[in-house]
C-alpha cells in the first residue's frame, strides 16, 4: 500500500537501486523522494524514471534522511515513499512562483489544494527553502504558510511539511515537482479523506530571559528589543561579541521564542514558537531571523537550545505517538527533522533521529528527512512554521 526505502551511496543510480529493492514489487502511482544534497538531482530523477517510468515524483533535496535501516546527513542519503494504492495516494498541487512572491505562491497553492481537499484533510507542504545564496536569503515559510491559509480559506485543514535544503550550511535547495527538478517551487500533497494524521511536535529550547518586546523590526530583521539594539541584548546574554563569521554561530546557540497563550503559565515546550537566528549584523546592531512572522510589539524571550531537553522531548513524543496509534492500522511514519538537531550541529551526545528510528513502533514504515523548517498544526490552531523542532507524523486510516 505504502512502502519506504532508504539508501546511502555516492552513486545516485546505486542509491536508487537500493531503495527500489526495498520498496518491493508493483507499480507505484506516486513517489515521494528526499534526496541528499550532494547527489546530482537530475541523475536521481533519471534513475527513478528508469526504474518506474513516468510515475510522478515529488519531494526534493534534504540535508539528510532517516530510515529504519540507517540515517545520516552526509548528503548521499536517499529516502523514497511509494504509494501503490490509489486509495492512499495524494493529489499534488505545484507552484514555481516562490521567488516572485512567497505569499502569493502560497496562496496559489492553498487555493489549488482547497479545490481538491475536503474539510480536515491532510495536506503535506514541501518547498525550496533557499531563495538566494549570495547573499543568503531564505524563502520564508511564514509567508508561504500564511499565503496557503489565505488561499485555502476558513475550512479546517491539517497542514504539515517542511522546507527542503541541500545541507546544514543552507547552501541550496531544490524540488521534485512531479516531472522535473526545479528551484523556487512548492508542492502541496492532498491526501484522500480516508486518511488522517497523528502528529507530535518535539522541541528542544527553553527560555533564558524575561519577556522582551520587539520595538523595531522590518520583515525578518529584528533591530531592537526593549528599545535597545537586539544584537547588544543577545551579546550581553551570551557574554561574547558576535561579528563576522561568528554571527553564523548564533544559529547554534540561541533563538527567539514567542510564547502562546497565557504568558505567565508554567513552562510548556509546546507553547513556544521559536525562530532561529540566521545571522548577526554588527553594522546595524540587528539579527536576521529565519522567518518574518514576528512584528513590532511581539513579546519574545531569548531561548537556549537544550540538548537534554531535546532528547527528553523526543523520547516523550515517540512514546506519546506509540500510544496514540496503538491498535490502529498505521500506514506511514514521516519524520520532519530540523537539520540543526543533528548532533554534528547541536552537539547532542546522542542522535535524536536514532531515538525516533528505534523508538517508533517497529510495525510502522518510517522515513524522515532533515529539513530547513518544519510546518505543523500548532496549539490547536492553524499550522505554523516551526524552528528547531522534530515533527513526527503517522498516517493511518480514518476511524
Amino acid at each position: 500500500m505504502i512502502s519506504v526505502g532508504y539508501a546511502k551511496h555516492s552513486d545516485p543510480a546505486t542509491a536508487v537501486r537500493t531503495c527500489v529493492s526495498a520498496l518491493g514489487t508493483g507499480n507505484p502511482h506516486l513517489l515521494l523522494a528526499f534526496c541528499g544534497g550532494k547527489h546530482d538531482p537530475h541523475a536521481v530523477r533519471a534513475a527513478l524514471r528508469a526504474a518506474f517510468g513516468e510515475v510522478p515524483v515529488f519531494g526534493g533535496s534534504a540535508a539528510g534522511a532517516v530510515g529504519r535501516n540507517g540515517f545520516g546527513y552526509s548528503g548521499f542519503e536517499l529516502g523514497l515513499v511509494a504509494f501503490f494504492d490509489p486509495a492512499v495516494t495524494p493529489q499534488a498541487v505545484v507552484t514555481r512562483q516562490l521567488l516572485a512572491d512567497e505569499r502569493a505562491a502560497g496562496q496559489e497553492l492553498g487555493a489549488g489544494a482547497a479545490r481538491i481537499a475536503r474539510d480536515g484533510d491532510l495536506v503535506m507542504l514541501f518547498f525550496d527553502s533557499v531563495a538566494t545564496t549570495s547573499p543568503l536569503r531564505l524563502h520564508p515559510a511564514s509567508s508561504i504558510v500564511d499565503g496557503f491559509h489565505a488561499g485555502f480559506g476558513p475550512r479546517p485543514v491539517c497542514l504539515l511539511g517542511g522546507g527542503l535544503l541541500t545541507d546544514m550550511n543552507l547552501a541550496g535547495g531544490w524540488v521534485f515537482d512531479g516531472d522535473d527538478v526545479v528551484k523556487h517551487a512548492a508542492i502541496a500533497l492532498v491526501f484522500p479523506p480516508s486518511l488522517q494524521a497523528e502528529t507530535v511536535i518535539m522541541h528542544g529550547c527553553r527560555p533564558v530571559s524575561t519577556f522582551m518586546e520587539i520595538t523595531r523590526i522590518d520583515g525578518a530583521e529584528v533591530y531592537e528589543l526593549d528599545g535597545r539594539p537586539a544584537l547588544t541584548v543577545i551579546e550581553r546574554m551570551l557574554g561574547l561579541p558576535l561579528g563576522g563569521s561568528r554571527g553564523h554561530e548564533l544559529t547554534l546557540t540561541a533563538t527567539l521564542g514567542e510564547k502562546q497563550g497565557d504568558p505567565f503559565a508554567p513552562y510548556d515546550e509546546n507553547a513556544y514558537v521559536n525562530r532561529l537566528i540566521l545571522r548577526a549584523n554588527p553594522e546595524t546592531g540587528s539579527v536576521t531571523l529565519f522567518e518574518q512572522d514576528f512584528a513590532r510589539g511581539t513579546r519574545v524571550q531569548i531561548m537556549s537550545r537544550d540538548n537534554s531537553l531535546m532528547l527528553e522531548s523526543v523520547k516523550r513524543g515517540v512514546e506519546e505517538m506509540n500510544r496514540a496509534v496503538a491498535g490502529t492500522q498505521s500506514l506511514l511514519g514521516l519524520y520532519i527533522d530540523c537539520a540543526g538537531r543533528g548532533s554534528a550541529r547541536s552537539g547532542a551526545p546522542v542522535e535524536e533521529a536514532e531515538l525516533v528510528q528505534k523508538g517508533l513502533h517497529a510495525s510502522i514504515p518510517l522515513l524522515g528527512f532533515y529539513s530547513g523548517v518544519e510546518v505543523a498544526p500548532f496549539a490547536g490552531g492553524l499550522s505554523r512554521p516551526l524552528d528547531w523542532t522534530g515533527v513526527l507524523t503517522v498516517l493511518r486510516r480514518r476511524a
Partner: protein
Amino acid sequence: MSENAQGLLVGQLERELAYYRRECNDLGARLLRLQEEQSQTFREARRSRTVAKLIREAYRLADGDWTPNDIGVPMLEIIIENALCDGAALLREDEGGESFRVIHAIGAGADATKQPIMIPSPPEFFFTTARTPIEPLAYELTSILRLPYLLWAYDKPTGRALILGSRSESNVSRPFEAGDQEFIEGALSVYIDIVLRKQAEMELRAAKAVAERASAARARFLATLTHELRTPLNAVVGYSEMMVPGSRYDPSPADRGRYSALILEAAQYLLKLADGILDYSYLEQALPSLAPEWLSADQLLASTVALASGESHSRQVEIRVMPVDPALEICIDPVRFRQVLHNLLGNAVKFSLPGQLVEVTAERAEDGTAAVTVRDTGVGMRPEDIPRALEPFQQLDPSAVRAFGGAGLGLPIAKRLLEAHGGELTIESMPGKGTTVVARLPAERVRERLDT
C-alpha cells in the same frame, strides 16, 4: 493603606520585579553560556569520536571483498559522512614527484580534473581559512576541488594524498583548523593501510592461484608422463619378451623384423619425449643466456623448414615458404628462435592430414614489428582451448594427443622462448579449419638490411 504606604509598596514591588528580572536574565545568561560550553565540549568530543568512528568504519572495508581500487569511493563516503564537508578526493603522486592525479572524488568538485596537478612541494598537512593568504600553495591546493576551504594530508612514502573541501568557512559549526590534522591524517593512514592490505591480499591470492595451477599442471604432467612412458615402454618390453631366446612365441624372421621396427619406433618416441621434458626443464636456465644476432628472416625460415622437411615428407604434408622480403632482418638467438619455429612447424605438420599444406611467412608490420606466421589447414582446435594449449603438459583431447603423439610441450616452449625475445605468440584456430600461429617480434628486433 495610605497613599504613601501604597506608593512605598509599589516602589518596593517594582524594585523587587527589577531584581527578579535582572537575576532571571543573569541566570539565563549563565545557563545559555553553560549550554553553549556543553555543546562545544560535545562537539569537540564528537571530533575525537569521529576519528575513532572513521577508523572503525573504514577498517570494515578491509574485510569486504574489494579490490584496492574499489576501496577509494566507499572510503571517501565514510570520510565525508564524518567530516561533513562538501567534497573529498584521493590523489596519487606521479612518478617524479611534482604532480598529482585525482584517483577518486565524490561530492562537490567530484568532476575534478584527471589531468596532472602540479604541486612542487606538497606539504604533509595544510588547511585554509578566510585568513589564509593566497599564496601559490593555497592556490594549487584549492584548485583541485575548486573549493575555497580545504583540509589536506599527504603521505610521502606512498605518494598518496587526501583533500577535503567546503564552500563555506563555517562548515556546519566551525572552520578547518590545526586540530583537524589528527582526523585527516588518520583517514589517509587508514586508507593507505587498507589499500596495502588489499594489494598484499590480491598478490597472495594470485600466488596461491599460480601455485594451485602449477600443482594441477604437475599432476596432469605426471599422469601424461606415466601414460606416455608406459605405452612405448610396454611395446619395448612386450616385443622384446617375444623375441628373447626361449620365448614361447618363437616369432618368424619377418615378425622379428617388424617387432624390431616397432621397438625402434617406441624408443625414438621416448627419446623425443625425454628431449621435450629436458628442453622445458632447462628453459628457466636458458632464457637469461640468449645470444641474439641479426639474421636474414628469409634464410632463417628456409633453413628451419629444411630441418622439418623430413618429418613433413613422412607425413605427406607439404611445407611452403611464402616469399619473404630479402632485406628483412631479425635480431634473435639463432638456436632458440629456430627451436620456436621448429616447434611451430612440428605442430603444424603433426596436426595436418596427408596431402594438406603448411604455409610459412615472415613480414614486417606498419608498426615496425615483424610477424612469422605458420598456417595449417589441419584438425584445428576450439578457440576456448587455445589458452590451455599454451600451458605445459596440457592434453586438450587425450585421444587426439595419443593419435598425434607428443607431450604437449611444443607450444609452451615456443611461447616462453619467444617472450624471452620480447615477442608474443598468438593463435587463431577452428576445429576442422586449421590453425594460424603468429610469432611477433618487437620493433627493436626488426630492421631492413641497408645494402639491398
